């Protein structure tokens, strides 16, 4: 669902959360809910599921799990338990569902967490995902509301999965481009999260359906700051801009663009195809981290050391109208 429609629907229930133990709820459009248990521990809870993005059921399971686990990592937490949620039609071989669940279970194990159960219903189209419970120290929650003026912004995975998946559906994507995004989508954000915990950062969110600019806007709005994005630094999957130029832009990218109208200003040098990639909804995208100035080099080095080799500096936090984004060629 697009960000505009969603926030409208959620308005109905947001005011119901008055408990002080709910450290993070619906109000700040964060990645997961955080609930304080005691002085030392807070629970992180999140749920994510979607329709298949790739044909291979095992790979789909891995991607869905990496995507669901990502919300816990984005809050600075450690995943503990996961519950499967699956929809599956009777007309498809049940082995396929088995392969999806196996992919998910393997990814959850890789994250060091356990699958504790789940629920499956019959549906026309397969869907899979997980509800994940994680743990974090209440003082060390990394929300999307902590970005400060002067911070630098780092993105840990390239952009363009939505466009390349659309092109793949049309049979117009190069096989190596598809292989690249498949590998990236199935990669946990764990190493990126550990790097940011080691260095100490101000704010973090993960990039998924609302696209790079959508999630960046949420972070900037929740933090009460404005941001400048440097186009030259943005990591892109190969062929993403070319495929966008051909019109292989998913509907979600248009919805994100529409929602962000008036909130994002592009310098004249920023072409439409790059704009499309910046609005492109991502599946299991990277972490977007706001890091205090002076620590950015240390964070990039720590990311590289942990194998997060495509992380790049993509912008900075400036004073200005909260939530506004300016995209310029370079800083």
């Amino acid at each position, binding site marked *: 669902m697009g960000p505009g429609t969603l926030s409208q629907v959620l308005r109905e229930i947001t005011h119901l959360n008055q408990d002080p133990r709910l450290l993070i709820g619906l109000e700040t459009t964060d990645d997961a809910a955080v609930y304080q248990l005691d002085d030392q521990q807070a629970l992180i809870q999140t749920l994510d599921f979607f329709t298949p993005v790739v044909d291979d059921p095992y790979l789909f399971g891995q991607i869905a799990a990496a995507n669901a686990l990502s919300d816990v990592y984005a809050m600075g937490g450690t995943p503990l338990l996961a519950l499967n949620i699956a929809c599956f039609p009777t007309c498809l071989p049940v082995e396929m569902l088995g392969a999806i669940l196996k992919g998910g279970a393997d990814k959850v194990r890789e994250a060091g967490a356990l699958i504790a159960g789940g629920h499956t219903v019959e549906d026309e189209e397969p869907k899979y995902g997980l509800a994940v419970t994680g743990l974090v120290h209440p003082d060390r929650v990394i929300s999307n509301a902590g970005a400060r003026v002067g911070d630098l912004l780092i993105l840990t995975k390239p952009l363009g999965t939505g466009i390349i998946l659309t092109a793949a*559906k*049309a049979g117009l994507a190069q096989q190596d481009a598809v292989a690249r995004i498949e590998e990236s989508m199935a990669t946990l954000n764990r190493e990126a999260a550990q790097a940011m915990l080691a260095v100490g950062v101000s704010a973090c969110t993960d990039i998924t359906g609302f696209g790079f600019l959508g999630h960046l806007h949420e972070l900037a709005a929740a933090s009460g700051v404005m941001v400048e994005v440097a186009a030259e630094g943005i990591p892109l999957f190969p062929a993403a801009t070319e495929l*966008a*130029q051909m*019109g*292989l*832009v998913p*509907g979600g990218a*248009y919805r994100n663009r529409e929602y962000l109208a008036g909130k994002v200003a592009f310098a004249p040098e920023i072409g*439409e195809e790059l704009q499309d990639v910046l609005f492109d909804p991502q599946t299991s995208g990277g972490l977007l981290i706001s890091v205090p100035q002076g620590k950015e080099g240390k964070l990039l080095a720590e990311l590289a050391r942990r194998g997060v080799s495509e992380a790049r500096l993509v912008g900075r936090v400036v004073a200005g109208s909260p939530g506004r984004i300016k995209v310029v060629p370079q800083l």
Partner: protein
Amino acid sequence: MERLVDARGLACPQPVINTKRALEEGGAGTVITLVDNPIARDNVLKLARSLGCRAEVEEREDGFAIRIEREGAEIASSPADDKKKTVDAGTEVLVLIPTDLFGQGAEELGQVLMRMFLYTLTELKERPAGIILINGGVKLAAQGAETVPFLEALAAAGVEILVCGTCLDYYGLKERLAVGTVSNMYTIAEKLLQAQRVITIP
């Protein structure tokens, strides 16, 4: 010539695929694509621009009509082009070769039979419109293969030779392609669906 692509009710990226197909097949002329939502409209406009075509949008009651002008360049003029056109028009026979061995049994015999088959095609009066080489079949078009001269002769006679690019990559033969055009599954699947008859070599 004006061609109509009715992409109303179709989900993304189908309107782009259908418009692209119509533009590629029709040569010069106009393609009018009907869509029922602004996302499809914008994506089709992007496609038109990326192909260097002029495009205009007319808003209608049930959506949008996008008029795309394709100029010159692709009008068939040579006999080879005529031949290509007949493949597109779906009036001819295609030979799909997914192996470098003809039939199952002794490997050596399979090689000999494949050579003989391709040689015989060069001698026959009735030729296929196209030959599609996929999987092990791509080896037949690689430098050093004894079948290359026959494929070259067929290509010279107007038979379109399409070679699967993914398969060339897989076998590490991309740099060694001696004859034919590198193609992709989109084109191959499209040709197979449009052909009047497809003969698959076992």
